């Protein structure tokens, strides 16, 4: 077994790494460009860190705080520029908003004495005179003050409670049809009013405001309000994650045109004040024509940190169909004849069905060359053929025909088990523990064997039929093998489809690729600097995805030590990632309570699915590729239709955090696993 995977023929996606980040050019560019691009990027510490390194290279001086740079980017992340502009026009966002970012960047550059970059940026921005002028206006206060300057206002702190109460009353008095959709603004207005009060030093009033109105907010916001309540002074506002989110993003509110007009009318009547200011600056209205939604409709998609996903973002066409299966017919028939000579013709006819199905041209399927895919080796084809043959024997599962379940119990794990993974054919079990171990357990009678040494391998007759068996060292046969290398809890394991490789990721921020033939670590992928929560192999192998505390999901290939794509846009940890069955998309679930679907080809976010009220622990695609099922700590399983990003089902009978979901192979059944207190 060589140290690299055997997809030698495959060319990487692009020569430069990483090539595309959310449609921006890569981070390995010149410093000036990097900085300017990152200015419009959202808050990802990882990216910022790379910026810092660039800066380091420039003058060898370490930037004081990495976090300070993260806060430079208030623009809504991953929103296609066309959409952003459209939204902007509707919400009447002042152009100075963009400018303040530039000012912040310039200040940062100036502070770190990055003259060249600064000049470049000024030239490029084209309004550096204005900046020069306005700078004095903003003053050279602390960084926090600059960043939060939008919160600065001289308004009377006593009017806050009153105006908010007015808003509440207005909504209460509204027609029932508008009432619920207008009430969506309550929470963001509440949050920003509170932050304004805190920023302007009216601590006691802020606390009183919070205490008075927090019970009026929806249940699913209470957790955020709780963490928000920690922020009671201006100093707390910088470097606090939830703050970054509120400050860095606009809150999306989906509303009918009539509803919006209704609200606007009220605001103009009320005449200025903090409510109007906040609604103008901080809220992003996604206006549509049609019937106002009911309360339950609104609640079903509310809850995410960023508000509701705008409809525009979910309009991109995606190819959710399955890839065209490679030509396996010959192989199957060949095998078939070899194995079961003179079998009944009836069976054969049945067997053709899945193949015929895959032959059909699915309009929703991506072209097979949309992204470079690993070439199937003979052994993979055999494996696939075997799987298809197995599938033919399968009994269709249904409500009345439920499968049996096999449970494995880990004894004496002492709450140290952090991840468990079965190989696709249920022959191997991998588990990671909080004390850095990774163990592979064979759950079939077959023992785990290691390859023979090089000298011994030379002696093997390579033409022998059983060469694969001969390559293995019988003496090393064991039921369990242990892999050591991580330096912290191992949060995720993933088998390659051919079961020769294993990926593990852990608290130490590394992803490790292990060979299950030599039982050694092959590669350590160091890209995430924070704990990696999840890693998943692509169904075809070669590619894999990871999600981390650094709020990015990343796409890797086994033969590249750096990520091919960095998917950045989540407002909190990316807790889980999942490959689409056709390998063209990656879904990521985050602690910001949203799910995003990323296109591998161009790195764009093509779907934002909001509706979870807690962090997302697990994502799973249906075998047909059209549906995505998700579940998390809000005890609910949601099923999404990827074709339009709509919520199709909400399964709510669980009463505890859900940690695992799985579709049956025919896609008829969905199983969910909850946390049980033992």
């Amino acid at each position: 077994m060589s140290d690299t995977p055997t997809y030698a023929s495959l060319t990487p996606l692009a020569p430069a790494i990483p090539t595309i980040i959310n449609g921006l050019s890569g981070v390995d560019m010149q410093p000036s460009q990097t900085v300017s691009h990152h200015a419009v990027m959202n808050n990802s510490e990882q990216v910022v860190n790379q910026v810092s390194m660039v800066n380091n290279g420039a003058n060898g001086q370490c930037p004081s705080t990495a976090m300070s740079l993260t806060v430079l980017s208030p623009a809504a992340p991953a929103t296609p520029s066309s959409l952003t502009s459209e939204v902007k026009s509707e919400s009447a966002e002042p152009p100075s908003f963009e400018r303040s970012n530039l000012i912040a960047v310039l200040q940062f550059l100036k502070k770190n004495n990055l003259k060249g970059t600064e000049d470049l940026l000024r030239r490029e921005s084209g309004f550096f005179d204005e900046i020069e002028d306005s700078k004095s206006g903003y003053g050279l206060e602390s960084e926090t003050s600059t960043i939060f300057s939008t919160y600065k206002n001289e308004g009377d702190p006593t009017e806050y409670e009153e105006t908010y109460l007015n808003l509440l009353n207005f909504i209460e008095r509204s027609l029932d049809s508008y009432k619920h959709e207008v009430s969506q603004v309550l929470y963001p207005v509440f949050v920003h009013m509170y932050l304004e009060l805190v920023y302007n030093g009216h601590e006691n009033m802020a606390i009183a405001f919070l205490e008075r109105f927090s019970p009026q907010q929806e249940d699913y916001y209470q957790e955020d309000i709780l963490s928000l309540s920690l922020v009671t002074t201006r100093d707390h506002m910088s470097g606090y994650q939830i703050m970054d989110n509120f400050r860095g993003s606009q809150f999306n509110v989906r509303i009918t045109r009539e509803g919006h007009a209704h609200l606007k009318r009220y605001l103009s009547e009320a005449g200025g004040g903090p409510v109007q200011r906040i609604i103008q600056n901080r809220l992003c209205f996604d206006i549509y024509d049609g019937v106002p939604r009911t309360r339950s409709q609104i609640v079903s998609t509310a809850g995410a940190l960023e508000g509701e996903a705008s409809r525009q973002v979910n309009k991109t066409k995606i190819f959710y169909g399955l890839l065209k299966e490679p030509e396996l017919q010959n192989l199957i028939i060949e095998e078939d004849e070899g194995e079961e000579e003179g079998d009944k013709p009836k069976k054969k006819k049945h067997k053709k069905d899945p193949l015929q199905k895959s032959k059909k041209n699915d309009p929703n399927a991506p072209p097979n060359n949309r992204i470079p895919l690993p070439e199937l080796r003979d052994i993979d084809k055999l494996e696939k053929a075997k799987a298809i043959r197995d599938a033919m024997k399968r009994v269709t599962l249904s409500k009345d025909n439920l499968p049996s379940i096999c449970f494995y119990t880990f004894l004496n794990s002492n709450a140290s088990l952090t991840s468990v993974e079965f190989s696709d054919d249920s022959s191997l079990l991998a588990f990671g523990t909080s004390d850095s171990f990774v163990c592979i357990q064979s759950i079939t009678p077959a023992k785990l064997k290691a390859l023979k040494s090089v000298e011994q391998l030379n002696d093997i007759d390579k033409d022998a039929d059983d060469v694969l068996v001969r390559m293995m060292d019988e003496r090393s046969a064991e039921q369990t093998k242990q892999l050591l290398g991580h330096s912290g809890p191992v949060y995720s394991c993933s088998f390659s489809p051919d079961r020769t490789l294993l990926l593990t990721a852990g608290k130490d921020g590394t992803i490790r690729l292990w060979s299950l033939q030599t039982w050694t670590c092959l590669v350590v992928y160091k890209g995430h600097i924070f704990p990696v929560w999840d890693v998943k192999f692509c169904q075809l192998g070669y590619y894999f995805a990871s999600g981390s505390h650094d709020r990015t999901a990343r796409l890797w290939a086994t033969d590249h030590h750096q990520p091919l794509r960095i998917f950045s846009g989540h407002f909190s940890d990316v807790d889980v990632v999942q490959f689409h069955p056709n390998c063209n998309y990656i879904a990521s679930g985050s602690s910001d309570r949203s799910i995003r679907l990323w296109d591998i080809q161009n790195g764009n976010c093509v779907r934002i699915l909001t509706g979870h009220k807690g962090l997302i622990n697990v994502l799973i695609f249906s075998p047909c590729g059209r549906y995505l099922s998700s579940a998390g700590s809000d005890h609910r399983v949601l099923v999404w239709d990827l074709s339009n990003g709509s919520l199709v089902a909400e399964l709510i009978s669980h009463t505890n955090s859900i940690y695992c979901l799985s579709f049956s192979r025919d896609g008829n059944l969905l199983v969910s696993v909850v946390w049980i207190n033992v």
Partner: protein
Amino acid sequence: MILDSTLLCKMTTDTPSTVYFPLESVKIIGESIGIQSVSDEVAKEVSEDITFRLKNILQDATKFMNHGKRKKLSVLDFDQALQIKNIEPLYGITSKEHIPFRFASGGGRELHFIEDKEIEIAHWLAIEGVQPSIPENPPPISKNLQKKESVDPAAKLSTQIDKRDEKHIHGRGMKSIETVKVKQLATHELSAEQQLYYKEITEACVGSDEPKRGEALHSLAFDPGLHQMVPRLCTFIAEGVRVNVVQKNLALLIYLMRMAKALLDNQTLYLEKYLHEIVPSVMSCIVSRQLCLKPDMDNHWALRDFAARLISQICKNYNTTTNCLQTRITRVFSRCLNADKTHLSSMYGAIAGLSELGPEVSKALVLPKLRSLSEKIEQCLESTSTFEKNAVSHIKGLLLKNVAPILKLLRNPPDLVQDYKNEYGYLGSHLQIAVVKARQATSSTTTSISSAASAPLKAIAPPTRIIQHAPSVSQRTFVVNKPAAAAGQAQLGQKVIIMTSKPASNQSSPSVVSTSSPLTVSVAQATQKYVVVSAPNQPQIKQEIKEEPMDTSMMSPQQGLDIL
């Protein structure tokens, strides 16, 4: 430590939004680093900031908890949250379960802290039989203290004694009382020196070398600082008696009684806690039906007398209103005396025991029985059995010796034979003679305890014939309390005491191995001969031990011995 605990305490009582870091804690922490008198405003500022940061870190820690698939936040989660914030975590504070914070208050302050347990390192060393008063040596606990501790365990918690003493008592006294109650597991360890001493003493006491025995008994009777080994010595005696009563080995029973006597004589020991082992042993030596292989020839009467004196000594020293020792002992004897078919040996023992308990006891319990005893004696004197004749003559002698002084006081001078005969039957005439004799010798003493105490040990030493005889009876290797074998009653949860010697080279010195079933014996270190560990009652272990105790316990300590 102080931080977390106070915070936790608050969190359990208050609603989440009002949880704050207590100002008191800020002040205390300030003081601990030398900042005196932190003002309220400053403390409030600091407290707010700490609260914010702690909660911030806790929020991150919950992520680690969640990804660890747990619902319980661990210390490790907190450490990891600190790490991702690039803060060096506080190492060494790990806890699988809860953090065992202790609470203390005083001077208007309330404190939570983690108790640092002091590790007890025993360093017991005697030079020429005298324990030197070096810092490493625990000072011998005064008898009063031992007494206090055993009579009223709660009292010493309140008394302010020297810290070392306190720790000491805690190690020896309270620990064994308290923790044994809570769980079955309790480890008693002796230092290597103590183990050596124990071995030497027990070997010498039951060995055949009389001068050596004398030395050993002298050591037991006069050396201070033996209190740590008293439980083991008492167990040794108790187990030894149990086996040897069954085996009817008079010599060893005598040796063991002399050991008990030596311990009782030791002025530095307070044995109240171990009476449950000593008293039954001594009582066995008084009232057992048969104590030797040839009851008609061997002088087991002397052993009974000696043991009876012991029991009276115990009663005198340790009888309290709470343990009712004397009442209970007396009741045993009188029941023995009143029973119809009491064996003559037992009867002798019972009378001896009652007599030793003082004239008042004899008056109350022996005198009423005198007539029935007389009849029995008369009856037995005519029997053909030499043993019975022998026995009743001993009983007769004993009664005459002990009852005469009482009668002398009870009755008025005209001692008429007929009166005595009427009242006491066969014994009447003998009693009359004895009383008259007693009246003549005014200076003669009532058979008192003082005479018993001063009675030389040698006096009751068995004839040499028996000493020679004993080794041939058994090889002097005794397995005490072997299940269902020797003693017949396996006691669960009992400690294991092992005593070994070099088996081949020193054949004359006996080895006594006593084990009881549910226990394991393990060898801790090469220098340390053995550690006695009690184990939970598990049937599997029980069986293993039945088969194997000799191997593990005999061989391994041997190596240690050789090194020593």
